[in-house]
């Protein structure tokens, strides 16, 4: 766990601009070569409520959020009241002089003076914050100039003036601050060259790298940023992003496009995905490739729309009536979001099956500092065939079950699909022998998926007494927890599943059997991966650490739960 990280928490009501402050600060840190880890906690409303934007930053990699707060930027009184107990010994509150900070160490800022117009208060807060961590003001000046440049010189100048006034005001205060240690990355005049990116943006980019060109969607938090990113970036790439009447339509439209040769994806969350299940089954029956980004939030029903949970593994695994193969990829980092999204298109095309990317609100909204992706390492995915003879048979019985897929309207071949059981040439049938052959053919494709899956990866101690088993977005907190627990006395390692289906027991049984204590760490109430592994292998978890209060895991949460159950 990084010793040198600083945790900045910006809190206030929706509409006060806390995200602006947070994003500017985070961007500046990334440009200067620092690692960042952003956690956004917001209420499901456009105005009011209590929201936070937490940036944990430092020179070393940071994998998870922490509870402790070093710098609390309070845009309202409530933020102080709610979070003062999290302040560390050296912590400081940055707040308007009108707020009651009690006897907390605080910078009581005369915002009225520094920013006569209320709309500049964000920039003033940013100036004080940057100054408090000794962040280079020139860096911020450049960033503001770049961002507000479109709005004209006057706007830029006004913002810079407020920024400087606030920055300098803090320096004049009789208040000792601890500066950030220098970053470890070479920073040129154009900045570190690293990117500030959220999980969902990385999914969109990975999809584009794979050639994704069709994404119909219905808005649903926390998945909507994927189609938004696709439409923003797809402008020059010719991506069709269509907002449709409901998720049923989104799914079926994507299947239609995929049938006609597009690389199609849908993005949704639990409730929306529930409406897509019928279409998942249609993809299974018609052997139409489809990528499904399922970005989880707590359920049941509308649940907690803006919070996080890992409770839809079973939903993805069992969605759609009937039996057909599928793959479920579960990225643990922003980089894995990119890599797995790219891979999802490859798997979908090669198995002609539905492939899931299962993420959640925490990673979806979490900004990180990432190195630019080497696009040469991610080639465009091969698409379906465009040529076939007139005797083409869509579902030809081939040894591995994956029949050559041809796009209609590009050759003399007619392409026939049927959601009813069908013969190899796609025609409806009730011949029950044919039924058995076709069902077997479809199920055979599971082997294609299993042969080409992501192995679970071990982190930290390679030969631990205690093993923390996790999947998807829990990776970061589990790694930090393993280090913490090791420092407390017991060698602890991590086994992370970046793919939870299909499962190949030979890939992970020795790890499970090699540790004295195996603890499953999952963001749900029932231990869905633990149950699945037990069902598949008979292995029973020794312990489970589960979280389902809508918040992401932290190292302390995991370590405390593990120790309490000793």
């Amino acid at each position: 766990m990084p010793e040198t990280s600083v945790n900045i928490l910006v809190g206030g009501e929706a509409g006060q601009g806390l995200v602006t402050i947070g994003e500017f600060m985070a961007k500046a840190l990334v440009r200067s070569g620092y690692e960042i880890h952003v956690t956004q906690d917001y209420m499901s409303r456009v105005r009011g409520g209590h929201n936070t934007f937490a940036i944990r930053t430092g020179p070393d990699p940071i994998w998870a959020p922490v509870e402790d707060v070093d710098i609390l930027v309070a845009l309202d009184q409530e933020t102080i009241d709610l979070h003062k107990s999290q302040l560390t010994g050296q912590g400081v509150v940055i707040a308007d002089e009108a707020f009651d900070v009690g006897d907390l160490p605080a910078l009581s800022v005369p915002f009225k003076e520094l920013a006569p117009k209320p709309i500049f208060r964000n920039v003033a807060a940013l100036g004080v914050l940057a100054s408090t961590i000794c962040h280079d003001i020139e860096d911020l000046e450049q960033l503001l100039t770049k961002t507000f440049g479109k709005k004209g010189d006057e706007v830029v100048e006004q913002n810079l003036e407020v920024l400087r006034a606030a920055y300098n005001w803090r320096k004049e205060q009789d208040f000792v601050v601890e500066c950030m240690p220098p970053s470890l990355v070479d920073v040129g005049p154009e900045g570190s060259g690293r990117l500030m990116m959220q999980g969902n943006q990385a999914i969109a980019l990975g999809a584009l790298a794979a050639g994704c060109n069709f994404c119909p969607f219905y808005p649903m938090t926390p998945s909507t940023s994927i189609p938004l990113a696709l439409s923003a970036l797809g402008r020059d790439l010719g991506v069709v992003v269509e907002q449709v009447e409901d998720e049923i339509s989104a799914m079926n439209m994507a299947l239609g496009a995929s049938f006609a040769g597009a690389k199609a994806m849908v993005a949704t969350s639990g409730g929306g995905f529930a409406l897509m299940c019928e279409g998942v089954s249609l993809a299974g029956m018609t052997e139409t490739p489809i990528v499904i980004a399922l970005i989880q939030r707590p359920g049941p029903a509308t649940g907690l729309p803006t919070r996080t949970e890992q409770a839809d593994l079973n939903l993805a695994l069992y969605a759609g009536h009937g039996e057909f193969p599928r793959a479920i990829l579960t990225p643990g980092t922003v980089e894995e979001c990119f890599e797995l999204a790219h891979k999802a298109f490859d798997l979908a095309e090669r198995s002609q099956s539905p492939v899931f990317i299962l993420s959640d609100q925490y990673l979806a909204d979490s900004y990180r500092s990432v190195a630019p992706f080497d696009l040469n390492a991610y080639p465009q995915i091969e698409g379906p065939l465009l040529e076939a003879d007139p005797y083409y048979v869509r579902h030809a019985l081939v040894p591995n079950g994956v029949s050559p897929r041809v796009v209609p309207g590009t050759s003399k071949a007619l392409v026939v699909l049927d959601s009813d059981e069908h013969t190899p040439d796609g025609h409806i049938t009730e011949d029950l022998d044919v039924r058995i052959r076709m069902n077997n053919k479809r199920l055979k494709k599971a082997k294609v998926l299993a042969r080409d899956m992501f192995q679970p990866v071990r982190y930290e101690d390679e030969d631990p007494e205690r093993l923390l088993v996790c999947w998807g977005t829990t990776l970061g907190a589990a790694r930090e927890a393993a280090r913490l627990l090791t420092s407390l006395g017991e060698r602890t390692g991590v086994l992370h599943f970046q793919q939870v289906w299909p499962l190949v027991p030979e890939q992970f049984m020795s790890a499970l059997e090699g540790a004295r204590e195996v603890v499953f760490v999952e963001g749900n109430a029932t231990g869905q991966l633990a149950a699945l592994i037990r069902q598949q292998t008979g292995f029973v978890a020794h312990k489970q650490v589960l979280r389902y209060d809508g918040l992401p895991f932290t190292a302390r949460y995991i370590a405390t739960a593990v120790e309490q159950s000793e």
Partner: protein
Amino acid sequence: MSHVTEIIHQYLRHNKKFPHVFCPGCGHGIVLGSLIRSVHELGLPKDDVAVVAGIGCSGRIAAYVDFNTIHSTHGRALTFATGVKMSNPKLHVICIMGDGDATAIGGNHLIHAARRNVSITALVLNNNIYGMTGGQCSPTTPEGASAMTTPYGQLEKAFDMVELGRAAGANYVARGSVFQANMLERFIRTAIERPGFGLVEILSPCYTQFGRKNHFKTPVDMYRWLKENAVPRESWEKMTEEKRRGRIPVGEFAINDAPGLEQRYAEMAARLKEEAER
């Protein structure tokens, strides 16, 4: 006759799929004939036609025609078809749905496909009943009519599909009947040829599940009813309220030229590309 046989050989999967599943007197066979004659007359290559069908008796038409076909799921044909059209605009996409398919489970998709005005030809075969599943009422079952699920008569009002399509923004809206096959073919051809969403409601009798329970003695009776009561729009407009009762107007109800969604999309993409390059 030889001409007919030739067309059948050219467009039907005649050696594989027949005899067909339709009951004696079912109107759907006439629609099937009208469809292939329309495509033939327009001279569309088979490879450039994609037929997307829903589920129900009408959906079976997809099994008989020798085009690219997708027998999709109940209610979802239009969404699947929109994906096909947006992905490959050069295909002529024809959707075949029943009344329950298009206006009950797929009602929302119908409204929005019309609103988007995507260039799809939607043929809704309206027999006022769910045929394949045994005669349950549909959103177009007339008030008072008997169905398996309305044993005491349908209480609810029926949808007027023409009004629905017109209000939702479809370029082309027509209603025809299988008794007036020439007129029907004209509507189908127009819908295929014109840009934008073309909705053709087709009155197609189902004696088995509807006629028998609603005082029709034979299938022929139902065609006789159509002959007398499916009146051309022009005559309908001149009729008194009194005379209109129990009758239904057929004809073209909306003819607009707005470009289809796929065309507007391509134009926007070209414009943005040009802007980006500048």
